């Protein structure tokens, strides 16, 4: 088929506008037809009216649009100031503080185990005497192996991590003590 080279610039503006409008009308008609086909198929397959029930149910669940109330009609900060009774310590706690209080009270949850470990670590460090160090070092040496850690849950790995932090502290304090002893020995030998 022979194709002529044609130019749109030969057309004047009105014709160009008419052309643009025709193209636009075609596009809109396509969109309308698409919608018609969609709706017709929905009607024939029976799912067009699926989202409608009887009038009464529709009235019951209508969207509520009032201030101070959510779209279901419920007041949404009703329980902000209510108080709950803790089943463990039988204290009356505010609702927003209830969950963290339960965590600490029952001794479960991430934070309470971390705090407990920290407490153990600091109390062990402070009550350390020189003779105890050797024994504790032997006991704590098990923590450096990774076999036992694999079975442990994440909480235990936290404890092991904290215990392993003590090791350099212990080693340093051991070194200091040994240095202390040597110093006194030296003095003693030099005096005698």
């Amino acid at each position, binding site marked *: 088929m022979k194709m*002529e*080279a*044609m*130019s*749109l*610039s030969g*057309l004047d503006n009105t*014709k*160009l506008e008419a*052309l*643009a*409008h*025709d*193209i*636009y*009308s075609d*596009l*809109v*008609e*396509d*969109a*309308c*037809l*698409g*919608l*018609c*086909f969609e*709706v*017709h198929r929905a*009607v024939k397959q029976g799912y*067009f*009216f699926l989202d409608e029930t009887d009038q009464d149910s529709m009235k019951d669940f209508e969207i509520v649009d009032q201030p101070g109330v959510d779209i279901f009609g419920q007041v949404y900060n009703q329980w902000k100031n209510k108080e709950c009774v803790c089943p463990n310590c039988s204290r009356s706690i505010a609702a927003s503080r209830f969950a963290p209080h339960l965590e600490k009270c029952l001794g479960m949850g991430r934070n309470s185990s971390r705090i407990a470990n920290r407490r153990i670590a600091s109390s062990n460090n402070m009550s350390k005497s020189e003779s105890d160090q050797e024994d504790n070092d032997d006991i704590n040496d098990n923590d450096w192996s990774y076999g036992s850690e694999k079975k442990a849950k994440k909480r235990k790995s936290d404890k092991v991590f904290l215990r392993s932090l003590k090791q350099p502290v212990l080693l340093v304090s051991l070194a200091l003590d040994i240095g202390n002893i040597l110093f006194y020995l030296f003095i003693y030998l030099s005096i005698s």
Partner: protein
Amino acid sequence: MSKESQLRALVNQKLIEMGERERLKELLRARLIECGWKDQLKAHCKDVIREKDSEHVTVEDLVAEITPKGRALVPDSVKKELLQRIRAFLAQHATL
């Protein structure tokens, strides 16, 4: 075939070949959904279907009812945007 209709056919062919017609269709569909045209028209469909016998609605019935209303309901902003894009395309491809 007159020169004008030949020109028109060529323009349409070029639109399709360059994929511009698909892009314009998608753009129009997106804009119409955004502005709520589709939902409006669907509600109108519901009324039409309820009036007629809902079992025996044909495509032709729907088309006859929906298309004129659909054409009228297109918002001006959408129409302007599309015409602008079409004019830009025509200006860009003045020589076919």
